[in-house]
Structure formats: C-alpha cells, structure tokens
C-alpha cells in the first residue's frame, strides 16, 4: 500500500459544555463532536466528508489542523504524530496543512488589504522574506486564483462572495501546503459561482498535486471533487468508499437517505422520484442514542441496533479491486443489500 500522507486513528474530540451551575459547581455535559474516526489520505488524493450540521465534520477539520485539541486518538502526518507536538511546533506544521473556510467574507480580516491577507502566512512562516518578495508572491498567487494583481490594495468588502473565496484560496495556497482542508467552501456562494470555485479547486489540485479534504453538507457538490467519500453522522463514520461506489452502490441507510434528499433540477425526474424522506431530526450529540447513533431515524432499525455499536467494517462481497476500500458501519448491511 502506498504510504499515506495523513493517517487518523480513532480520533475523538469531546467538548465539555456548561449547562448550568449550582452554586460554585458548574454542571457540565460532554458533547462528543468527533467520536472514533479513522481514515487515511494519500498524496494528491481528495477525500469528501459529508454530513449534516452537528455531525462533527467541522470539528474534525479543525482537529486535523490542530486548531482544536483532540481528546483521544492519533493524527499522524507524514509518519509523525501531531499529538505530541507543542503549540509552537504545531504552528510550524501549519505550513503544510492549510484551510479554506465556509464564510468567504467572514474569514478575511475586514481591516486588512488583500495583499496583507494573502501575505500573512508568508510573514508568519518566512519572517526573513522581504516585502518585495512577499508582494511578488502574493501578486502571482492572486493571478493564479483568477484575481487581478492590481486589486492587491483593495479591502475584502469591495469584493463579491466568489472573489472573497478566491482570496481565501490564495491565502491557503501561498505557502505551498500539501494538504488543504476545505470546510464547506462553496455553501455560502451562489450557484453559478459555486461551479467556478469547484473548478478552480480541482484545477489547482491537479496543478499543485495537493491533497484535499473537502467538507460539505450535501452530496452533489462533493461528487465533483472527491476520489473517496466519507459519510459522517453524530461524530461517527457511517460509510466510507470510493466516489462511484458511494453514489451507485450505497450500503448504509443514511447514505441512501442523503442521496434521496437532494432535489434534482429536472421536473420530470422529480415527479418520478420516490420521495422517501427521513423522519425526525438529528439527536443532540451531547446525548446520542445507544448502539447505532442513526437508529432513531433509520427506517430499517431493529432492536439489536440499540444494543450494539456497529463497527466500521469492510464490505466483503464486492469485486477484488475494491476490497477493503468500502467500509460501512451497519449491523444489517449484509441482509439489507442482498
């Protein structure tokens, strides 16, 4: 097997949140935002992570970058465990791991010019670089993401959403990272602009041989960028498989529900479509259901689902080449798919 760039092993991020206080003793509860996630990522590979709000996908992204401290498990980056690093060493690692944020305007400091924003990582990582060198690099980068270099002195609020996202991409790429984590980079953008940004990311990935982790809340966007797709629900992995397998042979009931809930922009197809929707709402991650976390909304749930936490297991009866690459966490996946 090709050695992986990033390997995540049983990662857990639990938050303690205050729910109230009795005199001086605060009452807390534990929110299991990320609860036992394992996967690995190769160089130049794109992993899509899909899940609804509160499933922990953003926390996972932040944990990978060391913006949130994991409470358990390991993150191994190029053979080195990030867990043992000090804050300072972690800061150095961020040169290789960068991030693109959901809110295009909100992720740019409103008091800084585009030049200052895009140049900031250079200033932080290469303090010896001269101002002129930084300016040159920034101008080149702006051009690469499809902005005009003469806009370098403008402020974020003078740009449209799509352009702001391009600025965010330029900032992430200027230090030549190996992995870029994109946290819903297009969900705040208009449809016509979404496609531009997705194409740009794909293009840059090919050009710079980047690895991408692409987080989204719906499946349609992820499909266009990902090699593999990981489906999350309440902090756990439901299914992980190659892109085409996920879309053509989904095995987990949740994956199927997600696929079915995406409306199709074609009236005819919409009329024919069986509109089975999931009932209920996401349970609170502070108080997840016992056993399988999805069972409260699963149309196929049985008593056993409440007792046993389903392990993420490789699907066995598939073609050779795919063996081991398709993993599902459902105790009924065999019977449901035969």
């Amino acid at each position, binding site marked *: 097997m090709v050695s992986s760039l990033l390997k995540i092993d049983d990662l857990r991020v639990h938050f303690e949140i205050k729910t109230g206080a009795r005199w001086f003793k605060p009452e807390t509860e534990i929110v299991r935002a990320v609860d036992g996630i394992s996967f690995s990522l190769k160089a130049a590979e794109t992993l899509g992570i899909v899940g609804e709000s509160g499933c922990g996908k953003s926390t996972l992204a932040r944990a990978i970058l060391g913006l949130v401290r994991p409470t358990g498990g390991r993150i191994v980056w190029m053979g080195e465990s990030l867990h043992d690093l000090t804050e300072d060493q972690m800061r150095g690692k961020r040169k290789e791991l960068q991030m693109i944020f959901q809110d295009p305007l909100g992720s740019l400091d409103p008091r800084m010019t585009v030049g200052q924003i895009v140049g900031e990582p250079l200033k932080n990582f290469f303090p010896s670089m001269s101002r002129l060198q930084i300016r040159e690099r920034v101008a080149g980068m702006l051009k690469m993401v499809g902005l005009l270099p003469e806009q370098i002195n403008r402020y974020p609020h003078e740009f449209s959403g799509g352009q702001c996202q391009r600025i965010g991409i330029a900032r992430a790429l200027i230090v030549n990272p190996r992995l870029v984590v994109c946290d819903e980079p297009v969900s705040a953008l208009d*449809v*016509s602009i*979404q496609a531009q940004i997705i*194409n740009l990311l794909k293009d840059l990935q090919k050009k710079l041989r980047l690895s991408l982790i692409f987080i989204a809340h719906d499946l349609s966007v992820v499909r266009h960028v990902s090699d593999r797709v990981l489906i999350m629900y309440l902090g756990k992995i439901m299914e992980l498989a190659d892109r085409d397998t996920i879309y053509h042979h989904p095995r987990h009931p949740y994956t199927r*529900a997600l696929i079915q809930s995406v409306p199709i*922009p*074609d009236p005819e197809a919409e009329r024919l479509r069986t509109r089975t929707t999931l009932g209920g709402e*996401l349970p609170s991650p502070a108080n997840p259901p016992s056993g399988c976390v999805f069972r409260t909304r699963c149309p196929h749930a049985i008593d056993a689902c409440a007792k046993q936490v389903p392990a993420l297991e490789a699907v066995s009866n598939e073609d050779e080449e795919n063996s081991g690459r398709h993993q599902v966490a459902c105790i009924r996946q065999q019977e449901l798919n035969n």
Partner: protein
Amino acid sequence: MALLEVRDLVVAFDTPEGEVHAVNGLSFDLEPGQTLGVVGESGSGKTQTAMAMMGLLAENGRASGSVRFRGQELLGMSTQELSRIRGSSISMIFQDPISSLNPYMTIGDQLIEVLTHHRNLKRKAARQRAEEMLHQVQISDPAQRMRQFPHELSGGMCQRVMIAMGLLCQPDILIADEPTTALDVTVQSQINLLMDELSEQSSTAIMLITHDLGVIAGLCNQVLVMYAGELMEFADIDPLFSSPAHPYTEGLLKSVPRLDQIDSGILSAIPGNPPDLLSLPVGCPFRARCSYAFDQCSAHPSLRETEPDRWTRCHLDTLPKPTENKAD
C-alpha cells in the same frame, strides 16, 4: 383578474453610494392554487420583490409601480391597512426560522396571537385551531409543543411552526423566502415534501423564492428567473428546464452539480461575477457573462413573449443547441 397583479414594480434604495435599483420593472401575476418559483442569485432582487409586496422594505427603500391584491393597491397603503392584510390574506415565511419567532413567547402564544388578532377568535378556539394547524404540519404532540419556546425546538421544527403560522388564517398567498436554505439536507426534503402536500391540499397561491433549482423543479408550476433586478425568463417549469430560452437560465441549469447524471468531471460555470447594482452595464445586464453575447446586446433587450405564456428578455429567439448530450 388575477389574485395578485404586479406591474412595473421598481424597488429603489438610497445608499451613500447612490440610488440602487434592486428590482427594475418587474411584472407578473399570481393565480389561486399556483405555485410560482422565483429563482435568482443573491442581489437579483427576489427577496426585495417580496418585501415590497408586503410593505416590509427597509427605511431607505421605496417601491413604485403597482401591486394589486384582489384589485386593491398595496403600494402606498397605510401601515394599519397593510397589517390587516399581512398575516391574514398574505403571509410570509423567512429563511431563518428561529430568529423569525419571538424568543420570549411560547410557540402556542405566538400562534394564538395571530388568530385572536386577525380572526377575532376567542383564546380557547384559537388554541384549538393552532393545535390542529401544528398537527397539519406534522408536528408530533402539538399540545406539548405549544408550551415550548422557540429555542427549545430544532431549526426544522421551527420552520414547521412558521409554516403553520403562515397558514393559520388560510391566506390567499403564502410567500416563502428560501424556506429550507438554513436547514439540513434531510430536513430540507421533509419541509419540501410538506410544502408540496400543503399546496396540493389548499388553494393558497405560493410564491417560493429560492436559489435552488432542484426545489423549484419539485414544487412549482411556473418559474420566474431574475437577474440584476430584472425578469429574465418566465415559463412553465417543464419547458424552462428542458429548453431554457434565456442564456442565464441555461447557465444556471448547467452549473448545478447533479446527482442523477454521469459526472463529466468539470462543471460548466457561468464566468464572471454578478453585476454591481450601482453601476449596471448598458444594455443587457447579463451581457458580460453571457457566452452568446453579440453586438445587439449593447441595447437593452425588452421582455418578449416567444411562445404562449413564455417570456424571455433576450435578443436571441432560440439559444444555439448545446453540443453536449443531455442525460436521461
């Protein structure tokens, strides 16, 4: 006479940078039972159209033209008269359900208030009617929910409550402004299904404002495509989706990633950025981003009826046939 007639609606805002026309000469009709989709990107004026109709424009905004509801002019109506119509004959639901509800009042009190205010019902009768309505929007255990505060409910649940509130007085028109955008995918499809069922059951006309063409395809009869404050195309959904007449509509349709089609690798995006409403280009506002643009486009195209009930604002009669094949 149509239920609602909008003619030459212009919505202008005074801003420090100058006057901005958010909506520019929009005309359309709404009939009972119709579900009209209004689609467009941010800044296309779709929300401001609804706001103008409801008399809810921001202080620096002005609406001119005409909005007639059952023959009665809404623009320029006094706040008192308007508020009688708002909530009873025309109601509106917003994108963010949680902040549209009063956080200091229980769900029940908010629903009951609408009925006692608009329908002069006694509290007891109102309570009963509110419970029925909650039941109708498929909220389990309505009596219990009535005692809860908005923050105790999830986003999807709050949107159901908003829909219930919008339908309480059996309005003639329900305006839904991006009702599912803030919700999770699986909850979105629950709400869409609910809206679909409700629109089939009642004669309430729905004006559904959204950026999601998929939602339009599933729920609407007609579509109004807006760009830079202007109507670009108006058609029944089937012809609009199968053979868009305006390049912008076509571009929008092509740029949506679709789950039901073979992945072609690269998405066809509309190049460029939405226009700055402060300095709109001369001629067709879409010209700079249009792949079919030609000399004539420097003249502002007027809205033309190319086929019965089919309007487009483009100098081209038909769009050149795309070369790529359309999948099933």
